[in-house]
């Protein structure tokens, strides 16, 4: 057994997490590096090169900015959407280089730019609206049309802990893919699960009928690269971790929270196909 394979040993039983190419779906630019960058780096070492697909990075124009989006921009200190998008994509490219993975950016706009669906934080972190549910199918279709796609691909999606509608939609896309016999694994949404541990418990309870038993990946050998990839999102880290002055310490503590003797660990839940009616 190689060192890389040893890293994939589940706590309790050895297993392979992804047999073919791993396709990591990221609702927004930094989600995958933050949530499962260690596993991405491990899979990159093993090959074939994983790909991180950012779903909601679509370009928009000024006329889609409603009052809520303008308020959000004010909080984030955004003035020029185009230069911000360029910067975010440059950060994403740098993080992918560190993790040794490919990137794809789909063209679907972020929730705050999608019409009048999300006009408050309550709506942004609430139920997915019925009118938006078909977006999950669209995402699943576009993922299966990627040049990197093959029948042996394994897809990683956010659990949707924290209930951001974009994360929930990508999880639902994962359910569609699971229904099409694709192997799908859900990852913990970081930093939501760090800042609000209850969000994970709540989400797991909601999804209890469609998730399998969690699998654990030891990421000690790639943890430094994960941290470096997260730091590549230089405009985001101070915002996401505004509650701490020790980001590395916070991420290390989080990574080791399940079993300190194992070192840093990432956790994934198999997404089960819906039971036939």
């Amino acid at each position, binding site marked *: 057994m190689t060192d890389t394979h040893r890293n994939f040993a589940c706590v309790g039983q050895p297993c392979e997490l992804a047999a073919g190419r791993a396709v990591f779906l990221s609702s927004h630019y930094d989600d995958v590096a933050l949530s499962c960058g260690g596993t991405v780096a491990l899979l990159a070492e093993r090959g074939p090169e994983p790909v991180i697909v950012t779903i909601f990075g*679509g*370009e*928009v*124009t000024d*006329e*889609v900015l409603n009052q809520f989006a303008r308020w959000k921009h004010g909080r984030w200190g955004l003035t020029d959407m*185009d230069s911000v998008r360029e910067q975010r994509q440059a950060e994403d490219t740098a993080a992918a280089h560190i993790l040794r993975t490919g990137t*794809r*950016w*789909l*063209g*679907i*706009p972020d929730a705050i*730019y*999608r*019409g009048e*669906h999300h006009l408050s934080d309550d709506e942004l972190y609430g139920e997915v609206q019925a009118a*938006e549910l*078909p*977006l999950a199918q*669209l995402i699943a*279709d*576009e993922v299966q*049309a*990627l*040049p990197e796609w093959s029948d042996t691909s394994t897809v990683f999606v956010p659990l949707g802990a924290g209930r951001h509608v974009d994360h929930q939609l990508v999880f639902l896309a994962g359910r569609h893919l699971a229904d099409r016999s694709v192997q799908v694994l859900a990852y913990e949404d970081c930093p939501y699960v760090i800042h609000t541990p209850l969000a994970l418990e709540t989400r797991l309870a909601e999804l209890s009928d469609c998730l399998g038993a969690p699998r654990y990946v030891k990421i000690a050998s790639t943890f430094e690269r994960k941290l470096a990839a997260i730091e590549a999102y230089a405009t985001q880290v101070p915002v996401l971790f505004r509650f701490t002055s020790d980001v590395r310490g916070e991420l290390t503590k989080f990574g080791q929270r399940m079993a300190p003797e194992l070192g840093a660990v990432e956790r994934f839940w198999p997404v089960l196909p819906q039971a036939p009616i």
Partner: protein
Amino acid sequence: MDIKVVPKGDGIAVAEMVGDLNLLCAADVRARLATAVGDGQRHLVVDLGQVDFIDSSGLGALISGLKSARQAGGDLRIARPGEQARVVLKLTTLDRVLRPYESVEDALEGF
């Protein structure tokens, strides 16, 4: 994806597209539209009548073209999108930015 930019005079042109407008050709479409604008065709109508399929990346390329045209003081309109394109436009809410015209002539009107 085949693209033919047909000048109509006074900085107006029709970009005729044939094939699928998707992630694979989105970068090329962006570049072609930017080039057309750079060449002085700042009022563009994209004729989607012969486009069988559009994905979100394809729409992104059109948005990029729209921005290029606007920065040059012009505009970009889309004409004759098929049912599949209309569904994707509506789902992504990009129909608010790229309002579909029923014909190329309708889209050209007022340029």
